[in-house]
């Protein structure tokens, strides 16, 4: 690996993995909650919430990054609060890149989890009730394990997509080497610099391999779990 990639490219790979993993951890719990609300919840604003969750799919990523900058930037309301309360800065940091990536991949994750929830027979939860299981108990022992195929598929897809997030990251977290310069940002930088053809090609191939591996892994995991559930 070290023979194939330059140190700067290796660092971009490490950052991409870090940012993608961080974004999955950040978005997974709310994605499970939102997916559950959208499938089972009966409340007036449901279509609006549904549309809102899917916004990152249709908005220009740069716009998403800009909104994040307005909210979480040093002078943004949330950014200032986070900085004063916890000393956390998001804009122009790795954590910020993870947040931007999480927002972009959120709809993908919600979709996958929702799909598995829609296939879940509510009758099983009713059966658990008659056997003495309260709401939290039911969710942990019946609902969550049965939606696991969707959760894992969603997480892996979001991870793979997160490796390549560009627009939102560069707008919100900028292109800081060693901080936020992930594979796509490094690729962009290479294309912009004279004599960057070789590193650009290597980074493009790397993206291709990572993306393919991620999608194959997601499919394999989902199939394995489905089989263990007998479907």
């Amino acid at each position, binding site marked *: 690996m070290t023979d194939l990639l330059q140190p700067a490219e290796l660092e971009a790979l490490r950052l991409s993995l870090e940012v993608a993993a961080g974004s999955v951890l950040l978005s997974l719990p709310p994605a499970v909650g939102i997916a559950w609300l959208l499938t089972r919840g009966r409340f007036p604003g449901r279509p609006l919430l549904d549309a809102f969750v899917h916004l990152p799919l249709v908005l220009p990523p740069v716009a998403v990054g800009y909104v994040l900058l307005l909210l979480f930037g040093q002078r943004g309301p949330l950014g200032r609060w986070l900085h004063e309360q916890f000393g956390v800065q998001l804009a122009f940091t790795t954590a910020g890149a993870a947040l931007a990536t999480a927002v972009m991949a959120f709809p993908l994750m919600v979709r996958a989890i929702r799909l598995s929830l829609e296939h879940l*027979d509510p*009758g*099983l939860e*009713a*059966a*658990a*009730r*008659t*056997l*003495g*299981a*309260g709401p939290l*108990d039911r969710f942990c*022992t*019946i609902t969550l*394990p*049965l939606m696991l195929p969707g959760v894992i598929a969603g997480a892996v897809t979001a991870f793979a997509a997160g490796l390549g997030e560009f627009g939102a990251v560069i707008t919100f977290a900028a292109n800081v080497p060693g901080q936020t310069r992930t594979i796509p940002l490094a690729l962009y930088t290479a294309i912009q610099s004279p004599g960057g053809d070789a590193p650009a090609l290597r980074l493009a191939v790397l993206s291709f391999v990572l993306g393919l591996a991620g999608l194959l892994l997601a499919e394999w995991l989902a199939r394995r779990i489905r089989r*263990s*559930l*007998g*479907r």
Partner: protein
Amino acid sequence: MLKVAVTKRWEEFDLQVRFQVPTPGVVALFGRSGCGKSTTVNLVAGLVTPDSGRIELDGQVLEDTDYRISVPAEQRAIGYVFQDSRLFPHFSVAGNLRYGLERAGARAASASIGFEPVVSLLGLGGLLHRRPHQLSGGERQRVSLGRALLSQPRLLLLDEPLASLDVARREEVLPYLEALRDTLSIPMMYVSHQFEEVLRLATHIVVMDAGKVLAQGPVSEVSLMPEMRAVLGADAIGAVLDGVIENTADSRGISGVRIGRGILMVSLRGLAVGTRVRVQLLARDIILAIEPPRGLSVRNALEGKVTEVTADDHDAHLVKVDIGGATVLSRVTADAVAELRLRPGLTVWVLVKAVSTRGHAFPVT
């Protein structure tokens, strides 16, 4: 005692049920598909909330809309066997069986129903490590039954547990249900639209039609009520009689069953003298004679008195005859009623072919 008096309304459907059944005992909730049986069971389980009314089980109020009492389903300790079994696909059979047991809390400590006895009663020993998708339909229902039993229920609800099975599988599961009734004293409420199952299992029956209760009481009493005619149809009505085997002629495949003060010869084999049995005599199979018959192949000629004659439809009548401590129902033509001048108080002989009787062991009353 289970007391139910509730209403529930949906767009098209209006449910108003009111009944009382003793516990323990097996009560059948009987009626055509779509008459509101499953909704009634769901109301008792707490899976559906009534618009108004009250549900009480052995003195504990489970639901009372006037006092805003509604015990959540998970706290009712009411077991439920669903038509589609609803086993948890991510647990093994053993995991499914233990799910309710682990949540029974204090009730499990005094565990009246242990894991091993249930496994052996339902013949689940060889299945414990299997996953639900590796089971046959009949096995699935047995596991579902065991799972509900192990949650130590105060009442067991069975919503057409055999409806999704073919005839052979039904015959495989029915004996387990009978064994359950005879060995455990758990009150059961059994939903069915098959009168055959009611006959095999139930001590009491609540007959429903279009969201209302038509009749209720012990099966033998309700079997004589005119409401049964509407639900069962003319060919399937008939008296249900509980009796005791008095003598057997096993080699000939018939047994004498004491019913009231008389003895009825029934085609039954393999049961010992003293066994409690239940016999159904279909009204269409019963012949009435106004003189003592002679020289007939019929095995049974019981003397009795006509108590009631009612028009069934334009060309048939239903005649009730008291045969001494028990009543049978006969469906005869209007023509015969006129010719024999059948009327209350008249002495008649009830002729029943032994082969047209259906009997089976029924230990509880």
